[in-house]
């Protein structure tokens, strides 16, 4: 055999749309550990100084236009890390540009129509799409999934609880951030309508920006995901939520608080009559390995993990497989259903606030 036959394939070229903290603190450090299979070749950001600085740290080209990045023949995989409202357009453009695979940060669309359009383009072009729901790629979750057997059939209650410090604490452990945008100033006290709007905005932001990380996991245990009824929704200061809902016969409780703590806690639980799953996830940004999953019965506890890498690295490994034509792409229908589930909860939570405000006004009248 010649040495040529043993040569590893050249790394696949990666281009990233959006060079904010998620790109800097999550994706670039993840890719730095995967240099044998992936190589960052192009960074795009609307801020040229940020684009240039972030590109320079990985020896990549930079630009301020999506078209320029998509036209770069060295880019084979596109990661979309731009603000949410640009995701759908950019995913579709990346597919049409003939790239080998696309990663889109969550949520990959802002409504069902956008999601359906993306699925159609993916089907038409054959370009696989991975949504950055990192916990679904976490080796701890995947290990649990491989052994939980009939657990989903008996689960009657699901809990997702997220307690995190503000993102900069962990971003700064992962990298040196450039171009960080200062957090918006708290809104001044206003009318009752202003308050209601602020509560709704926090709940929508909480569901689509925080709860959405684990809603694909929740949906695995809630087969009647279209039958969503939000029973209670309240905000937690300074940012967070308490949301109680039902999806079919499954009770779902969502809790989150982003406070000033130094100690993160990110747990997911699915509970049945005689078995339950509990997963402790590591926080985003810090590259602290995988989740640890525990499957319990009255007589036993099976511990799975932790493993050496987290779901973000898992996403990139999956993308590399897909771009090389190996591995199975996520079912677009699954991605659409995940999005529909999240949107339904966000909308129903906001409606819950409206109903509460209306009841308050009625009581005052």
């Amino acid at each position, binding site marked *: 055999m010649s040495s040529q036959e043993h040569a590893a394939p050249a790394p696949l070229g990666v281009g990233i749309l959006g060079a904010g903290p998620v790109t800097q603190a999550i994706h670039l450090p993840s890719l730095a550990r995967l240099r044998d299979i992936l190589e960052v070749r192009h960074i795009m950001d609307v801020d040229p100084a940020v684009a240039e600085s972030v590109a320079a740290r990985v020896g990549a080209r930079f630009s301020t236009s999506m078209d320029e990045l998509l036209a770069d023949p060295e880019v084979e995989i596109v990661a979309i890390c731009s603000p949410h409202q640009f995701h759908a357009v950019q995913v579709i453009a990346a597919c049409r540009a003939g790239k080998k695979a696309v990663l889109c940060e969550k949520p990959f669309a802002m409504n069902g129509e956008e999601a359906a359009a993306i699925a159609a383009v993916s089907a038409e072009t054959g370009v696989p799409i991975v949504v950055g729901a990192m916990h679904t790629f976490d080796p701890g979750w995947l290990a649990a999934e491989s052994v939980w057997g009939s657990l989903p059939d008996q689960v*009657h*209650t699901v*809990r997702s*609880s997220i*307690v995190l410090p503000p993102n900069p604490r962990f971003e700064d452990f992962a990298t040196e951030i450039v171009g960080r945008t200062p957090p918006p100033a708290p809104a001044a006290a206003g009318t009752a309508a202003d308050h209601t709007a602020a509560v709704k905005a926090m709940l929508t932001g909480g569901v689509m920006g925080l709860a959405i990380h684990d809603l694909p996991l929740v949906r695995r245990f809630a087969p009647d995901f279209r039958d969503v009824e939000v*029973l*209670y929704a*309240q905000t*937690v*200061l*300074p940012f*967070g939520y*308490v949301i*109680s809902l*039902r999806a079919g016969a499954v*009770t779902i*409780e969502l*809790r989150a*608080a982003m*406070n*000033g*703590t*130094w*100690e993160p806690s990110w747990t997911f639980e699915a*509970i*049945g*009559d*005689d*078995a*339950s799953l509990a997963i402790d996830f590591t926080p985003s940004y810090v590259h602290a390995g995988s989740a640890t999953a525990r499957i*319990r*019965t*009255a007589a036993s506890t099976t511990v799975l993990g932790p493993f050496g890498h987290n779901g973000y690295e898992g996403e990139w490994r999956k993308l590399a497989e897909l771009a090389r034509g190996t591995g199975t792409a996520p079912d677009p229908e699954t991605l659409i259903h995940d999005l529909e589930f999240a949107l339904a909860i966000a909308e129903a939570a906001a409606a819950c606030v409206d109903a509460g405000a209306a009841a308050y006004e009625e009581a005052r009248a």
Partner: protein
Amino acid sequence: MTTPLMTTPLTVQAGPDAEQTGAVGAVVASLPVSFAPAGSQPDVVALAGTAGWTADAADAVRGGIRGVVVVDPVAEDPAALAAAAAEAGTAVVLDQAWAGNPVLAESQSAVRNAIADALADAVLLDSVAWGVPGTDPEVLLTRHLAAVLACGVELAGLRIIQRNANGYTVIGSLPGGAPAALQGITTSSVPATATVSVLTSSGRADITLPDASAGWPAEVRSVTSAGAASFPTIYESAHRHSWRRLRAAVDSGASAADLEQFATLTALVGQLHDSPH
């Protein structure tokens, strides 16, 4: 702690239900100087806290008993019992699985202060009570509320958000307006524990109260900006702690505050019955 050698044990009698739920025989055996099994005329009795327990206990009080332990009481108005006990000078102690854990005793000032500090700065209270399948949700909720109150939590505006055979969700608020969420879940896969988590602006306090069927210790942990602290473990079940409290109450003649606190609990449960579901 040293028990005086000349202590005369109080003789104990327990009905089958109280014996089963309160492990009375095993607990009394672990306090051999303070208590002994009764022959015919007990000094103190253990009663099961099933429906009608207040009347049963009042009957025992009027019968001249010196002390009563009620195991796992369901929500009932204890006013008449309290009056009878006060008149007779009889000690009545409620043996509650989680609320009676020794870690929450008045003497545990460091624990109580840590919880109080967290409550003063709370942004969310999230509490879960676990019970075996088949547990009556109302019984589980009564135990659960008792545990939360025993942590020094004041709850307002409680209402039941959902309730079914698998558990319940109750929502209310803390004095500062922060939301309080209490969830009951039935499963055989997790021990019958209760957790009370108080999230603050910069940390949290977590109290995990164990099943009282063994001497598993409660866990109390406090997180502040300065770090995290775990409090000393107490390997004593709520059952045993209740019996020690009974002995102390009989000896001192001072009435325990159990019935007064239980009246608050009963009122809260009553308010929940009246809330829209």
